[in-house]
């Protein structure tokens, strides 16, 4: 892990404008939260995997994501099956007081697919958006440059923590000390020190400079290409279609 979620590549999704990716993520999250149609949720999951595949995101990174997401989904399913004892009438299996109905199974499937869809949608954007892309996209949404940089850093705080943790654990290991627990405490201190140094370094490069009327700029400002507009159009059409189906009671 290099301290950020971003995986360098030159795929089509990497090249999309960050604002479009954010819009797409938002649409997926909202639609999957609103519409509990398992076929739609499963189709979304397939579509997102196809997008990852065609964008040349290395399969091992998708695998790592599923290594965390899979057990999480399984845990949720087990908790639901155990706790939704009285839900539904079509009993498939019964053991004493505990029973499993077809409705419970369907509910589990929908919830698990929802979780997977939402997480995949978020990671699709995180895997394919570099720090520069975040800054460009967020300033394109009229966020001030300093706030955009801060948000871009905040997006990657988890991988940064793990990168520092790995360094600290390795350092201790190279001195003969095993176990990661002791490195846990070191990591917070090292991360704080790193943040402090970065903020001082940013100041020495003029991060909060008073420039009068001149506003900070970005080297490569956000720019919508034809492909970005096309993808946006598709997203809007899909969203409208789903909204119509929901309204029609599908």
């Amino acid at each position, binding site marked *: 892990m290099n301290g950020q979620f971003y995986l360098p590549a030159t795929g089509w999704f990497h090249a999309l404008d960050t604002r479009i990716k954010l819009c797409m993520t938002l649409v997926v999250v909202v639609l999957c939260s609103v519409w509990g149609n398992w076929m739609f949720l499963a189709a979304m999951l397939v579509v997102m995997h196809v997008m990852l595949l065609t964008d040349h995101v290395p399969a091992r990174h998708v695998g790592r994501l599923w290594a965390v997401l899979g057990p999480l989904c399984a845990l949720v399913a087990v908790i639901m099956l155990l706790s939704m004892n009285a839900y539904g009438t079509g009993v498939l299996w019964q053991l004493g007081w505990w029973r499993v109905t077809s409705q419970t199974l369907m509910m589990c499937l929908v919830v698990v697919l929802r979780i997977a869809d939402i997480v995949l949608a978020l990671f699709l954007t995180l895997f394919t958006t570099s720090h520069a892309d975040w800054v460009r996209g967020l300033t394109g949404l009229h966020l001030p440059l300093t706030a955009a940089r801060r948000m871009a850093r905040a997006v990657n705080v988890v991988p940064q923590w793990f990168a520092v943790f790995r360094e600290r654990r390795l350092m201790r290991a190279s001195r003969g000390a095993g176990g990661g627990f002791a490195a846990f405490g070191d990591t917070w201190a090292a991360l704080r020190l790193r943040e402090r140094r970065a903020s001082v370094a940013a100041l020495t*490069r003029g991060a909060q400079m*008073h420039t009068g009327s001149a506003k900070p700029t970005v080297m490569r400002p956000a720019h919508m290409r034809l492909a970005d507009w096309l993808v946006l159009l598709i997203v809007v059409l899909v969203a409208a279609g789903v909204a119509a189906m929901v309204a029609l009671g599908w």
Partner: protein
Amino acid sequence: MADIITVMNLGWRYAAPGGGGEPIQGLRDASCYVQQGALAGVIGPTGSGKSTLVKALAGIIPHCTNGSLNGYARIADMNVKSTTVSDLSLRVGYVGQDPRAQLTSPTVAEEIAFPLENRGVEPDEIEARVDDVLAMLHIEDLRERDTATLSTGEMERVAIGAAIAGEPDVLIVDEPASLLDEEGYEDLVNVIDVMRRRTRMTAVLVEQDTRFLAQRADAVFLMVNGEIIRRTTADIFTRERSLLESVGVIVSDQDTTPLVIESDEPDAAGNPAVVFNHVHARYADSPPSNAPQLDDVAFAVQQGDFVAITGGNGSGKSTLTRLINAELRPDRGQIVVNGVDVASRTPVQMAQQVAVVGQHPADMFCAQSVREEIGFGPRALGVDDDEVARRVNEMVRLFDLYDVEDMPAAALSSGEQRAVALACALVMHAPVLVLDEPAAGLDHRLKSRLLNTVARMNQEGTTVIIATEDADLIQRYCSHAARLDQGRLVSYGRVRANGRRFLAPPPVQGVLAASNGKGVAR
């Protein structure tokens, strides 16, 4: 001609390090003046306050450091006390001692663009300026590189690039020679020349390596114990050579002998301590377009050898040293240490065989005091308490750490931190000792003390591998050397000695003891 830097009776006391203790005097009554367009050098032994002085010029002191300031400092018509660091940066470019702490952006191009974006420069102009800076420093191929994957020398170049991108009136660079290779230093010198001609930029260089300053400096400030004891010109290097040497400043000889590595036949009957068997290494997730860090490196280090791994910035020296104790894993090839395949061992297991001091000693500290720090490794390896105490006492005596043994290692001066880091490695009693740039940024006194100690361990049977670009050091200490270029092994063999063995300790110990203030926290 007008002064662009005016420092009058400047004093600075660092706040006491955590856990109590006394505040530490960083600067005492320092006064100096630099004219616009001049090249000024700040020299002095390790811990003499050089970095503190230039941090005060960049505004990091007092605005971003705990402590108390008195006196007056003015730079480019701005009062340091009443101007923010960001506003100072509009006219002052600063490159600190540790380039890792200077980089704020994930890629090289973004890093160099950063100050220009803050100034509100138009995007097209930023692109052009970034290209210009990359070309001036000959780092065009690093343009889209992740800054986390750069070598320390490459980071220094990028930090210099970010500092000059805004065409500052004053450029301050802290100890560039300790991190840059010959080509990198030449590039820096050329950049300074060009910008002095083009914009009448003033340059302030803090240096241990005095070659460039001896030839070109308009003003030289000699610092000892937080005071500027000489405000003079470059003729100090000839006129007061003995004074400089007595305080630990290395006055470079002009007759430096180039490093010659003789091509030996491999010793089939030898007893190898470390074998690199066609090793290939590349950082995880680095794009295929990036060259690998190591490419088909193969050589064997015999037991009891003192081996240097040398080469320019980004040649793969540090990567190679990190493979020896399993800190990094190669993509292909094999590393064998004392008959053990490193691939089959964890770093914890390798700690029995290999003691390592990385390029940044402060990174390895994790205990509350110097004594605990030195005892950490043996304790982790299960050595009993009496033996740990005996070994720690031996190291404290060897490196003369009595005055700082109860202080946190992170609060010590850089020279003392290197001494503690080396003590942490030697105390492990491992048969192989690996040191990455052990003498970078150290004055003559500390350099001779640390390296002579390592040489003594080597004579007692420890195999020593050091990564360094210091040709003189290699010729004085090393039996063999491996030269790397862009990750490939160019030559490996015996070092042709230049007739000078080891560094003599400095002549006047009393002055040194006084010159090296204890525990100058940063």
